[in-house]
């Protein structure tokens, strides 16, 4: 993918100016935003310290609902992390031209959502200071982790995915780091000089970058699929009603991609507005991602329908109890909110071409993010509260500590994203140039070849 010549030097300069501007100019608004989001993260950190001091009893979990918000957040954020893989790796492999301004936004979501998600299996522990026992290191006790446990599988899957997605994020940033190095002076020149790993743009380097990215794009897809399958195994490996299902693997992967696309659309809309990237993130990108979101919405609806129908038809007494409490009982308001958010709203907005605008896509995406969080919650809590023996049924109410941790995850995501967009060109500059079109022209002519998208 060596850089194809761009039409004019002026266009190149325009792209550089537009995309490097956020790195070089910082307004008070940026610091205000960082302060607010940092405050949110700090609040979550304090909540966690409070929890460490007193014990995890400050959460609302109780017998028999031993998992709730913590694991919901874990599954939700690992799900969000599937944005980068699908958009970036698959679109790279099929060489979809419209992907170019989108890939880095998506890959960054993957890396940050994974970091946030991976925090929860640790902080939800009763004794988080012993979390390193999941690591297979030779100890004097001679005990290894239990490789039969899905939690041990999680540990390896998430670490693999995090390593892979960080590499996948970093590789295409190298030429852009070199560009920043060449365009700046002072500390920036030094820092980006180190980050660019001595990039000179020789054909040999381009060739190596291209090979490495080709390998990563192929490798990261099975890893991503396996990660959310293994997350689903945390549930489906137990004989708990409505968990013990062979469908959970693909169901979770589909849901993950679904929520990942929604997160990507929201992130792109925010970047477009606040960094003035209207010429780069165009309606066509939202249109295409909106179609993808619609497809995933229907796929998700199909999975839920298949799951619910087989459970209802099977009429196993324990499963039907959980089914009823979700569909008609105390969880019904949340359940039907989920259906509206995940199916009714996206389907209505995105299936009508006139409504598939940027605003429409963003509204649908907000619905999906809320709906998918509820979906994870509704998989976990009703089953645990209604396991087999009616005497041992139980309820769950979240506490302020859990709610603060949930809010802090969203603040952390936004904070990491804001800082990332401040330090790294959020649109891959060299890929944009290599695509052979430039901002000015693309902005003037909406019917560029971009529109002929073939997913």
């Amino acid at each position, binding site marked *: 993918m060596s850089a194809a010549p761009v039409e004019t030097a002026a266009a190149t300069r325009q792209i550089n100016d537009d995309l490097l501007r956020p790195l070089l100019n910082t307004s008070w608004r940026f610091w205000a935003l960082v302060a607010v989001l940092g405050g949110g993260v700090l609040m979550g950190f304090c909540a966690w310290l409070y929890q460490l001091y*007193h*014990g*995890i*009893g400050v959460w609302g*979990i*109780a*017998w*028999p*609902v*031993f*998992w709730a918000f913590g694991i919901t957040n874990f599954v939700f954020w690992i799900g969000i992390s599937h944005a980068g893989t699908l958009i970036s790796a698959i679109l790279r492999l099929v060489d979809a031209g419209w992907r170019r301004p989108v890939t880095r936004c998506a890959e960054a979501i993957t890396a940050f959502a994974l970091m946030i998600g991976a925090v929860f*299996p640790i902080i*939800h*522990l*009763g*004794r*988080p200071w*012993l*979390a390193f*026992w*999941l690591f297979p290191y030779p100890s004097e006790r001679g*005990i290894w*982790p*239990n490789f*039969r*446990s*899905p*939690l*041990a599988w999680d*540990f390896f899957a998430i670490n693999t995915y995090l390593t892979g997605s960080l590499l996948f994020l970093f590789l295409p940033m190298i030429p852009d780091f070199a560009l920043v190095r060449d365009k700046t002076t002072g500390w920036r020149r030094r820092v980006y000089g180190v980050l660019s790993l001595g990039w000179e743009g020789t054909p040999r380097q381009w060739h190596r970058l291209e090979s490495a990215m080709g390998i990563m794009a192929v490798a990261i897809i099975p890893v991503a699929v396996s990660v959310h399958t293994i997350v689903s195994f*945390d549930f489906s*490996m*137990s*004989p*708990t009603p409505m968990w013990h299902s062979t469908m959970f693997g693909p169901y979770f992967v589909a849901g993950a991609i679904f929520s990942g696309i929604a997160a990507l659309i929201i992130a792109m809309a925010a970047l477009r507005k606040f960094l003035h990237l209207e010429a780069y993130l165009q309606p066509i990108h939202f249109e295409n991602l909106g179609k993808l979101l619609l497809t995933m919405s229907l796929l998700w609806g199909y999975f839920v329908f298949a799951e619910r129908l087989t459970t209802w038809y099977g009429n196993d007494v324990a499963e039907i109890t959980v089914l009823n409490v979700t569909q008609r009982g105390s969880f019904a308001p949340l359940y039907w909110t989920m259906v509206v958010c995940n199916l009714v709203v996206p389907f209505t907005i995105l299936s009508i071409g006139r409504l598939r605008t940027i605003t429409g896509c963003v509204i649908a995406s907000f619905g999906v993010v809320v709906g998918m969080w509820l979906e994870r919650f509704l998989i976990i809590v009703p089953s*645990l509260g209604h*396991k*087999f*023996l*009616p*005497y*041992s049924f*139980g*309820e769950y109410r979240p506490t302020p500590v859990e709610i603060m941790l949930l809010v802090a995850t969203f603040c952390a995501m936004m904070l990491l994203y804001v800082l990332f967009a401040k330090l790294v060109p959020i649109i891959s500059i060299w890929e944009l140039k290599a695509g052979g079109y430039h901002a000015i022209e693309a902005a003037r002519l909406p019917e560029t070849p971009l529109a002929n998208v073939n997913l």
Partner: protein
Amino acid sequence: MPHKWGLAVDLDACTGCGACVTACHAENNIPTVGPDQAARGRAMHWIRIERYWEGEFPDVRLRFRPVMCQQCDNAPCEPVCPTYASHHTEEGLNAQVYNRCIGTRYCANACPYNVRFFEFFNPVWEKPLHLQLNPDVSVREVGVMEKCTFCVQRINAGKIQAKAEARELADGDIKPACAQSCPSKALVFGDASDPDSAVSKLRRSSRGAGLLEDLGTRPNVTYFPRHTEA
């Protein structure tokens, strides 16, 4: 031949008095959590008396069922533990190694009987309860999972005593706190690998059944359903 511990519960004999629950708390250093926490579902009763009402008022019958860890041969709690805190002993017990537990609570979610309990806070014993802690049982700290052990400390003490007296362990030498305290003798504990033990004879009865047996957990607690209508 290794021992294989089993328990038989005669639901006809159970009066629901709760002596077993109290005895279990005292024997096993199980903390009480106070009324507020108990109302939130943080009470830890390794053995509990489940109460079920049958029929419509006024023709109502009250049924009791003591439920404790079923010490399954095929226990769902064991494979899910990432640190082997929950594991199977040679004598067929589901052991819980408190020091090895990091508190994922996965075992409790996998357990179909909901007989695993979690230390949500560091336990406190109101005076003078702190003076009666059993020195043979570890006191658990915050963040670990715990459950009925079939009073493994009594099992080990019984074996040591028999060895010291240079004799075989006899049926009835070992009694967990619940069985010892049951006034109506509804709980019978013993070695199921000894065909002449009381519990073996009961287990051979066609009347006995395991709780939620159809899940394939192969529990080592046998229930004898009520056959009186009183």
